[in-house]
């Protein structure tokens, strides 16, 4: 049953994710006062990349160069399994870890200096992003369970956790923000290093990366909704998704790309403030 449910959810997650990426771009374009691409544009891009020629640079370390793409898709499918069936959120943390490994591996394996910079930036942004993700563990102290299904069940009796742990919610939101395109925290894909870690991944590989990213955006948004809002009807989730996306797009449109060190400092300070706040709260109260 669980397997069937997961398999059914994969195309749904993929389509929702890719349409959301398109919608993200569309909203940014509307803020900029232009018509903007249609919302299915990212899907067209992805299909186009699938039918493009694919070669590997001769400087690349081949197994890793190809392997990371499979790993990215596999990792977020695993993440989707966790979300759909309400498994332990620590596996999601492992999935997120794998995503960082993909960024690093894709960047370093190609032999291009731009990719290398993207990969290294991914490494030190990890130092800030991992604590951000791990902040979710604070929820455990309240609900006494790391199973997402238990956390949802807890909220159905005690109300959304969003109001009890606003700083944790902010941390999770920052994670999402650092993962969408054109966002101020997406330093691994900044313009100054061409396309960052993706520079040398093109053709089918780029299509694979886009697939992984679209499932990723679905998983991260679902995680936010499940952990901080709890049980809601389907339209409630849809509304929540769109609200999240619109806010992400507004932030992406209205801010410049931060310099790498600023970005890491920003994420790091949110994580440390969240941890310290709940630590002190736990000690004093």
């Amino acid at each position: 049953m669980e397997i069937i449910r997961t398999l059914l959810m994969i195309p749904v997650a993929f389509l929702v994710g890719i349409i959301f990426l398109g919608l993200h771009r569309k909203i940014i374009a509307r803020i900029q006062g232009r018509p903007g691409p249609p919302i299915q544009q990212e899907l067209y891009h992805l299909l186009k990349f699938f039918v493009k020629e694919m070669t590997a640079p001769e400087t690349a370390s081949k197994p890793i160069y190809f392997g990371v793409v499979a790993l990215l898709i596999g990792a977020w499918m695993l993440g989707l399994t966790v979300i759909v069936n309400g498994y332990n959120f620590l596996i999601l943390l492992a999935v997120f870890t794998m995503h960082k490994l993909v960024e690093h591996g894709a960047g370093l394996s190609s032999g291009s200096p731009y990719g290398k910079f993207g990969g290294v930036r991914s490494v030190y942004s990890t130092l800030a992003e991992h604590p951000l993700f791990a902040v979710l563990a604070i929820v455990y102290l309240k609900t006494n369970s790391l199973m997402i299904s238990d956390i949802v069940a807890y909220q159905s009796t005690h109300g959304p956790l969003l109001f009890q742990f606003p700083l944790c919610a902010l941390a999770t939101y920052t994670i999402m923000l650092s993962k969408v395109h054109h966002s101020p925290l997406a330093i691994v894909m900044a313009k100054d290093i061409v396309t960052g870690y993706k520079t040398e991944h093109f053709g089918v590989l780029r299509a694979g990366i886009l697939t992984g990213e679209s499932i990723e955006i679905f998983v991260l948004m679902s995680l936010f909704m499940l952990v901080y809002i709890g049980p809601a009807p389907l339209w409630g989730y849809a509304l929540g998704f769109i609200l999240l996306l619109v806010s992400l797009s507004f932030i992406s449109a209205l801010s410049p790309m931060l310099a790498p060190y600023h970005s890491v400092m920003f994420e790091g300070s949110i994580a440390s403030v969240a941890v310290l706040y709940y630590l002190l709260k736990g000690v004093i109260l």
Partner: protein
Amino acid sequence: MITDKLKNFVRRKSFHVTYVDTGSCNGCSIEVLATICPRYDIEQYGIFVHHPNPREADVLLITGCVTEQWKTKLKELYDKVPEPKVVVAIGACACSGGIFDQEGKRTHPPLKNFIPVAAEIPGCPPRPSEILDAILGVAPIVFKDYDKKEANK
């Protein structure tokens, strides 16, 4: 075949554009830049220009009258772009050398001596709408049934 139809469809709907200046006077450059402005908004037609990277390009927009440095690099660049690809020469310089094709020149026009060019837009410089029109006009024609054409070669 349904797959061929799908391929034609997505290749008509999505272009990644990389812009290369091979020694123009910048006039064409800023007109290309002007195509991304809200008045023309190149992106609404599915043309992506924001992170130009030859590795993911479908359309190469080339301006300028091939200078000494670009003579060898142009071919390298062209080879880097994965198939199927289309080259659009923008401006009089890329088409024929224009005003720079005179005695004492240090350039090697025209562009088509170096790489295959699918479309040429004359003008000094051409207007943004013309550039937009050319990309949208030529790319689908070249990309249509690309795999069949390759097989027949």
